[in-house]
C-alpha cells in the first residue's frame, strides 16, 4: 500500500498542466485589459470623448466615431429587435414544435449565426447597395446616385441581419419562461391567442427581449467586417444627418489609426483611448445582459 511515486508524479503533472491552461486564460484577459487600461486611461477626457479628430487625425477626439457607433446600433436595433421578436413569437407560440417549417427556421437561424461576418458585409454590398439601392436610384431618382452607395442605413441593416440570431434565440428563451398555465388562464377567460401573447406572454418576457437587444447591440458595436463595404468611412468631417450619409465607427477607427494613419506612433494614445472606450462599452453592455439573464433564470426556477 505504498504510494507509487511514479503514478503520483504523473497525477501532479497532469493537474499542473490543466491548471496552467486554465490560468493562461486568466492571464490573457488580465494582460489585455491591463495594457489597454494603462495605455488608454490618460487619454480619456471629456474633450477626447466630445471633440472631432484634428490635424489629419493625429490629435483631437473621437466623438464622430462614438456618435456613429451609437447611431448604427440604434438603427440596427430598431430593425433587428422587432423582426427577431416576431420570429421568436412565431416559433414559440404558433409553429408546432416539430413541424417542417419550424425546423427549417431554426436551421436557418443557426446557419445565420455561424456565417462569418465578412460575408454579411459582402451580402450587404451585393443586396442592399447594388441591388436595392441601385434599383431605387434608377427607378425613383432617374439614375442619380444616392442609395446605390455605402451609407448608415445599409450598414445598420446589414448589421441587423448579423445580430438577428442573437435576438431570436434570447427572445425565444424568454418566451419559454412564461408558464403554459398563464397562457391557459388567459385563453380560458376568453382572450384570443394574440391578446394572450400581447398582454400576458410579452409582458412576462420583456426582460428577455431586453437581454436580446443588449447582446445584439454589444455584438453590433464591436463588429467591423459587416459595415466595411456598406457604410463606414475613414473620416467624415460632419456627423451623419441622413440615412444616406456615411459615418465613423469606433472599431473601424482603431483599424484606421493603426494601419492607415500617416504617423502611427503619433496616434498611439488615440488608438489606446479608442480601444478603451470600445472595450468599456461592450463590457458594460454584456454585464447588463448577464444581470438581466440571471434575473430571468431566477424567475424561471421560482
Amino acid at each position, binding site marked *: 500500500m505504498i504510494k507509487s511515486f511514479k503514478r503520483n508524479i504523473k497525477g501532479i503533472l497532469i493537474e499542473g498542466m490543466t491548471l496552467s491552461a486554465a490560468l493562461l486564460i486568466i492571464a490573457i484577459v488580465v494582460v489585455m485589459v491591463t495594457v489597454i487600461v494603462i495605455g488608454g486611461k490618460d487619454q480619456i477626457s471629456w474633450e477626447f470623448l466630445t471633440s472631432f479628430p484634428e490635424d489629419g487625425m493625429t490629435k483631437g477626439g473621437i466623438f464622430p466615431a462614438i456618435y456613429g457607433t451609437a447611431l448604427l446600433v440604434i438603427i440596427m436595433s430598431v430593425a433587428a429587435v422587432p423582426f427577431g421578436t416576431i420570429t421568436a413569437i412565431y416559433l414559440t407560440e404558433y409553429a408546432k414544435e416539430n413541424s417542417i417549417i419550424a425546423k427549417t427556421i431554426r436551421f436557418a437561424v443557426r446557419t445565420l449565426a455561424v456565417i462569418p461576418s465578412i460575408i454579411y458585409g459582402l451580402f450587404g454590398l451585393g443586396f442592399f447597395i447594388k441591388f436595392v439601392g441601385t434599383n431605387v436610384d434608377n427607378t425613383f431618382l432617374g439614375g442619380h446616385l444616392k442609395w446605390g452607395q455605402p451609407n448608415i442605413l445599409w450598414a445598420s441593416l446589414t448589421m441587423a441581419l448579423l445580430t438577428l440570431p442573437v435576438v431570436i434565440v434570447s427572445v425565444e428563451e424568454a418566451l419559454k419562461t412564461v408558464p403554459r*398555465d398563464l397562457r*391557459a*388562464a*388567459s385563453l*380560458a*377567460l*376568453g*382572450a384570443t391567442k394574440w391578446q394572450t401573447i400581447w398582454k400576458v406572454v410579452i409582458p412576462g418576457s420583456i426582460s428577455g427581449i431586453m437581454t436580446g437587444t443588449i447582446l445584439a447591440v454589444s455584438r453590433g458595436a464591436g463588429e467591423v467586417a459587416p459595415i466595411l463595404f456598406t457604410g463606414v468611412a475613414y473620416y467624415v468631417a460632419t456627423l451623419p444627418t441622413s440615412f444616406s450619409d456615411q459615418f465613423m465607427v469606433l472599431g473601424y477607427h482603431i483599424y484606421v489609426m493603426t494601419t492607415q494613419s500617416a504617423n502611427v506612433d503619433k496616434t498611439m494614445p488615440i488608438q489606446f483611448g479608442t480601444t478603451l472606450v470600445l472595450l468599456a462599452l461592450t463590457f458594460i453592455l454584456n454585464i447588463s445582459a448577464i444581470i438581466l439573464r440571471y434575473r430571468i433564470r431566477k424567475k424561471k426556477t421560482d
Partner: protein
Amino acid sequence: MIHEKIHTENMFLHYGSKLALNDISIQIPEKKVTAFIGPSGCGKSTFLRSLNRMNDLIDGVKIEGKILIDGINIYDNNIDVVTLRKKVGMVFQKSNPFAKSIYENVAYGPRINGVKDKKQLDEIVETALQNAAIWTEVKDRLGDSAMGLSGGQQQRLCIARTLAVNPEIVLMDEPASALDPLSTSKIEELIVQLKEKYTIVIVTHNMQQAARISDLTAFFYLGELIEFDKTKKIFTNPDKKQTEDYITGRFG
C-alpha cells in the same frame, strides 16, 4: 323540472391513437354543483376540458359526438371558441394568477372584452372579488402584486378573475388539491354559494369533498362514465359495483 345546461351524447375523445373518453352521455343541470370523481387517468379532467374546448390547445385530440351547451353543439364549425370560453369559465388545479396587481388580474377579462370605463371596471372588480369571498382580505391592497397572496387567496383570486367575465358555467379542475385544509374549506364554502348564480362542474380527487359540496356526482373509470346520479345516492347506494368499490376505497 330542472333545466339542463350541458348535454353530451355519445361523445368520444381520441388522444392520438388512444381512446381517452368512450361514449360519454351526460346531462348536467343548471345552477347545481356537479362533481366528477374517479381514479387518476380516468378521463374526468379531459372531459372537463372538452366543455370549454381547452383540449383544442393540445395536438392530436379528436372529438366525436355531441357536446351541447344550452342546446348548441359547441364543436360546430361556426362556434367562436373565444365567446364560448367567456360563457364557460375555468379554474385550474394550480392557482395561476398573472404577474400583475390584484386589481389587474380581475380586470383582465373585462378589459379584453372591451370594458374601458374606470368606474365600471371598479364595480366589476369589486363584485367579482366579493363573490369569490376575498374582497375583505384584499380591498386595501388592490394595487399589490397578486404573487404576494397566499396559495388559498391566489386560488380565490383566480375564481374572482373567472367570475369577472360573467360566465354561466364555471369549470373547476381540482381547485383545492394544492391547498391546506383551511383554504380548502373556504373554497368549498365558496363553491356552494356560487351555485346560486352559476352552474358548477368540479373535478376532484377528494371523495369527501365531492360528498360535501356537490348535488350530483359522476364516476369515471378508464375513460367511461360508469354512473351518474344524485351525490347522496352515489355515496350511499350506488347501482354499480365499480362505483361502490371506488367510494369505499377498494381501489383508486
